């Protein structure tokens, strides 16, 4: 209402009005607020707790290295989900897709005796192909992504067992192929750097590109996106292509890291990847994002390693994941409620913007 008296006819940006709403906290303080980056505070808290709990084993560079290196593959799989999830598309096949890539490259190298480069190229293409297949199922055949990718994931798992129903290992998987994943810089191995690289690319894509924004729009309001003129089907297609491709890359790194192809190796990664992606979405502004996801993977890895080193039973590790997820999602709801309340209070204050609470 207060804006009716703006008299100009030409668009004029008024710098005096451009700032933050009166009475709210400074912007940088908000960015550092607990709920905006609770994962970082939780990580610090975990490090302190486990350092006190297991003072001889936990606080060491070795632990840090193993947590970070262990987070690489899981982080890559979690990042592969961020793009589809932003557009409210579920890709439940990423775990099996990574598993198939793992089996495929091991089979090519060991059973078929291919060279490293052609094997990697073919496996990458297989990753793209799996993404393409998902996209055809979800976009062209119009099968709901949740069900469609569940089905394609089962098919990927089937293919992996066709390639071999037992672990494939051999000298071809050691040596220079194993170097891909085990070459390290200051103790940190290549896959972790690659994960960081993917995270940077994803962050840039989501923050600065038109397609990145449009994927969010698609996830927030599909009908609205169509009416704005966004080609939603094309975006969905691309999102599934990306997750399949990244899963393929993760599969190659996994094979190099463990030096074997193992049927069924991919599926346990799926739930943790979703946990990390959803936990990450509560960070830095409440959308699916790259850095929140990477940090969440590290947080979950820290908890698991800490509980192991502190002598916790095996069940405490899965419990940790569940508790952290519930706490994080609960906290973000609480944050929203608190924000809403303070906003209403600011509105109701007599010296507020217009004096009358908006309907």
């Amino acid at each position, binding site marked *: *209402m*207060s*804006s*009716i008296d*703006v008299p*100009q*006819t*030409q*668009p*004029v*940006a*008024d710098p005096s*009005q*451009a*700032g*933050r*709403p009166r009475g709210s906290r400074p912007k940088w303080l908000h960015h550092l607020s607990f709920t905006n980056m609770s994962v970082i505070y939780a990580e610090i808290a975990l490090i302190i707790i486990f350092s006190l709990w297991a003072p001889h084993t936990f606080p060491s560079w070795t632990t840090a290295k193993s947590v970070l290196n262990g987070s690489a593959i899981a982080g890559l799989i979690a990042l592969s989900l961020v793009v589809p999830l932003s557009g409210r598309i579920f890709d439940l096949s990423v775990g099996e897709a990574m598993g198939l890539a793992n089996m495929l490259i091991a089979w090519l190298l060991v059973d078929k005796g291919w060279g490293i480069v052609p094997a990697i190229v073919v496996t990458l293409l297989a990753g793209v192909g799996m993404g393409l297949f998902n996209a055809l199922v979800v976009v062209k055949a119009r099968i709901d992504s949740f069900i469609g990718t569940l089905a394609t994931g089962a098919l990927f798992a089937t293919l992996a067992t066709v390639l071999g129903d037992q672990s494939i290992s051999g000298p071809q998987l050691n040596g220079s192929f194993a170097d891909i994943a085990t070459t390290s810089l200051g103790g940190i191995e290549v896959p972790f750097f690659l994960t960081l690289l993917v995270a940077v690319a994803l962050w*840039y894509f989501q*923050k*600065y*590109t*038109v397609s990145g*924004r*449009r994927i*969010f*729009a698609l996830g*927030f*309001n599909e*009908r*609205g996106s*169509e*009416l*704005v*003129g966004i*080609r939603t089907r094309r975006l969905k297609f691309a999102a599934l292509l990306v997750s399949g491709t990244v899963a393929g890359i993760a599969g190659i790194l996994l094979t190099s890291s463990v030096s074997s192809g193992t049927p069924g190796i991919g599926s346990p990664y799926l739930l943790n990847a979703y946990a990390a992606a959803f936990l990450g979405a509560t960070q830095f502004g*409440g*959308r699916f994002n790259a850095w929140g996801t990477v940090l969440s993977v590290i947080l979950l890895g820290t908890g698991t390693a800490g509980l192991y080193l502190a002598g916790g039973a095996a069940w405490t590790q899965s419990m940790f994941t569940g508790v952290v997820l519930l706490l994080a999602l609960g906290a973000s709801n609480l944050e929203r409620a608190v924000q809403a309340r303070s*906003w209403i209070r600011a509105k109701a204050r007599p010296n507020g913007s217009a004096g009358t609470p*908006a*309907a």
Partner: protein
Amino acid sequence: MAESRTGAAGNVRSAAEAPSVHAPGADVLAGVIALRLRGVSKTFPGVRALTAVDMDVAAGSVHALVGHNGSGKSTLIKCLAGVQAPDPGAQAWLVGEPLTLGDRHDAERNGLRFVHQDLGIIPELSAMDNVGFVLGFQRGALGRISWGRQADRTGELLAQFGFTLDPRRPLGEASPPERAAVAIVRAIAGWQAGRGVLVLDEPTAALPAHEVDRLFQLVREVSASGTAVILVSHRLDEVMAIADSVTVLRDGAKVWDGPLAATTLQRLVDLIADTEGQHPSAQAQPGPAAPDPVTRADPVTTATPADPATPVGEAIPALEVRDLYGRYLRGISLTVGRGELVGVAGLLGSGREELPYIVAGASTEGVTGTVAIGGVPLGGGPGPSIGRAQALGVALVPADRAAEAIFADFTTTENVSLAALPMLRKRGFVGPARERRFGRTWLSAVHADPGYGPRPISTLSGGNQQKAVLARSLSVAPRLLVLSEPTAGVDVGARAVLYDELRRRVAEGLAVLMASSDLEDLLACCDRVIAVRDGVVAGEFTGARMTKSAIAYAMEGAHHEQH
């Protein structure tokens, strides 16, 4: 005081002074009074929604309850249904027995049944499921549902009213009248003749005009069985066709009631819209003799539906629609010129709400006919699509802001910039500072506080959200702006701002097609208003002829009644 049309408006005076309750003789004639209401008032904080409304509904009759949005119709129905309690002092009797208003269970127990506009059915489930949820399922041994008997019973119930649909198929596959029939049948099944009162709340609102007849046949059969039917409707032609008596509400008070035979469609329009004595059209062209329902005073207007040839020497219109058919439209033709703001009026189901979406390429199902934007047919090439309409310079402001226009999780700036993002791109990426500037500029352009930019749009009022949506549509520099319900949920101040901004853009050459259910909207800013009725143009109004009553007459089909 304008000289009024002799027949119609002359009676309005006396009608308004008519006794507010039926003459006692009417009761005897119609038999039993199934529902009697006395002194029903309802006060909300600061608002008097209903003021001492009396109503008598005879058993075996169809009683229409008519009035504009906000006239108190829905409040009265909610009081009847027990959703809201009326102010103390209201009294009600059902077939002579006192009824507690505001008690949901008492209403239900005593035989008041309601079928609301959305029918309350589950389209994914079959007729027998939907009937079973209300009437109970046919049971077999161990309480299992006996599906065979359930199907038979559902089929029988529907067959009583002449509907033969497969009770096992999902209702989503049934026609709209069939779905309505299921909702009505399950509401009234098992009643004693002459006892119940069936309330139909806007049952035809979502039905295309050509599908209404079958539903009305059903309503007639229901009322012939002795049930009293209260029909809430805003389609007066239907009320005239089916009702026996009518109660007119305006601003929460009853302004008239009586048998329908004692009134005319024009009088009802006048009573509802409060346009008694406002008949400038009658002055300009005396008498109801206008043979053509298309009333046109201004020769500036473009081609008429009867004369499809584009006027010689006139520039190609920004929008030209020829013989357009859709779900509701039945061969509509119209044009919008450059720098012209054309309004589309019409009742729900008339095609008014469908037209903007077809023009914007957002509704293609069953669409035939020609839509040309600046002379280029929308249907050419890859077929009508939103992308193609946009390429031709069409921008749409959708009707349902929450579901179709707003991205609630985006900030206001992100909502504003979404359509123009590709234009904000520099070397492949969109700079945040650049986008913030863009958001501020466009928020200022539609007279919204630029400080709203970083706020989540869900925290803005409806009016400011609508300004943001308008800013988004204008920011792509469209040649034709299509709006549907642009002021729904928008406060008065913001409305004025939206009107002014539209007028200013139109003066710069923008063509605007604005469909609205709010006549005040259209009168406030349009150059020309087209009234749509049953999918075709029922009247076209400009200048002095563009009055609320003239448009309302055309929407309701009052002109046809005059012949």
